[in-house]
């Protein structure tokens, strides 16, 4: 490898944080992160597809082990949704929560794979350089999810309350109907509507990105010598174990916020 001769901390980290891009059209916006997109689609197809394969033959009688496991997960999610959302959850919200949880969990879990080994495999076996395998460390992914949910939230706000009802809510909550409060209410709601997708997406992105950076720092330490390798490996293992919790928790939080935002759109203040 030519890169190995000039390996410095910044080139190492920079190498791992570079996306495989393609220019779709003119302009800086029309760049596509192929690695993010392909990895996330593969993960989504794998996870949801395998669930579908099991569910397709779902029986109402005695379930198989796999079906029982999936039912366990689905019923867990369904119970959480039921507690928060009081409409017909089976039409969209509950399946969406399942999609979000499974997909985000799969994308987050990529973070636990040893970063250098997978990079080497991708380089030497598939010939792919700069392939980032964790789609949720790409802020485009988390924003894509959060914004999709945000638009759904706006859609349900208008659909459930009507455009007038929603505007009324924008102007008259949370401080009351008085015209003096209209500007304040609007400002408050504006902040709320802006902060929702921001916090929703940045929370996930920040946690997973920070996790990856720590793996990178530990990997860098491992390159400094024998003691660095030993401690880097031990701490890396510890961080990976801890990261199992972070990965699951962040996926769960992302799902819960999705459900909360959508159900808030269905309920008047």
């Amino acid at each position, binding site marked *: 490898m030519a890169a190995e001769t000039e390996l410095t901390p910044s080139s190492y980290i920079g190498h791992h944080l570079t996306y495989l891009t393609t220019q*779709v*059209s003119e302009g*800086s*916006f*029309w*760049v*596509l*992160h192929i690695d*993010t*997109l392909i990895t*996330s*689609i593969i993960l*989504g197809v794998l996870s*949801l597809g395998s*669930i*579908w394969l099991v*569910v*397709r033959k*779902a*029986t*109402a*009688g005695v*379930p198989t082990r796999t*079906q029982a496991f*999936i*039912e366990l997960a*689905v*019923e867990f999610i369904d119970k959480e949704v039921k507690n928060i959302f009081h409409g017909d959850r*089976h*039409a*969209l919200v*509950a*399946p*969406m929560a*399942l*999609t979000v949880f499974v*997909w985000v969990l799969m994308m987050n879990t990529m973070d636990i794979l040893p970063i250098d080994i997978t990079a080497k495999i991708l380089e030497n076996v598939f010939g792919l350089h700069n392939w980032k395998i964790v*789609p949720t460390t*790409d*802020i*485009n*992914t988390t*924003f*894509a*999810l959060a*914004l*999709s949910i945000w638009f759904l939230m706006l859609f349900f706000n208008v659909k459930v309350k009507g455009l007038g009802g929603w505007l009324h809510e924008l102007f008259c909550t949370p401080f009351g109907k008085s015209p003096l409060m209209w500007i304040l209410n609007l400002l408050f709601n504006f902040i709320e509507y802006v902060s929702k997708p921001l916090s929703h997406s940045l929370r996930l992105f920040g946690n997973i990105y920070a996790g990856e950076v720590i793996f990178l720092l530990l990997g860098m330490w491992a390159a400094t010598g024998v003691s660095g390798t030993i401690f880097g490996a031990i701490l890396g293992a510890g961080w990976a174990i801890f990261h199992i919790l972070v990965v699951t928790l962040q996926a769960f939080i992302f799902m819960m916020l999705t459900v909360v935002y959508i159900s808030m759109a269905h309920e008047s203040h």
Partner: protein
Amino acid sequence: MNINFTLISQAIAFSVFIWFTVKFVWPPLLRAIEERQKTIADGLAAGERGRHELELASQRSSEVLKEAKQRAAEIVLQAEKRASEIVEEAKKAAKEEGDRIVTAAKADIEHEMFSAKEVLRQHVAELAVAGAAKILRREVDAKAHADLLVAIREDLK
């Protein structure tokens, strides 16, 4: 770390995945779970119904048993009554039969006594005639003294 076209493509991928889950993953599983819940609920209801019916049946059977016992007691009572009646009747019939036999026997005895008396009277009359003949030392002519003999016989009656 810049926002670019990836966002839009990821949003499209996300909506496709949501559509897939809503359309293909959720409904069959939900159907299976709900069907199983219904089966379990039906089973529990059937069990409850069975228990209720068992209760009713045992109640009914105890009623039937009670009635049967009562009937049996009645029948035994009637049988005892009938038996005592039969005994009474038998006693009465036996008594009547006995009375009849006794009466017949008494009549027989009377008859026997009467004929014996008759024979005896005959003998006495003959003896009287024989005695009188001995006293008179001569034969009493039956023909000559027929009226006498008849008179004696009449006296002995």
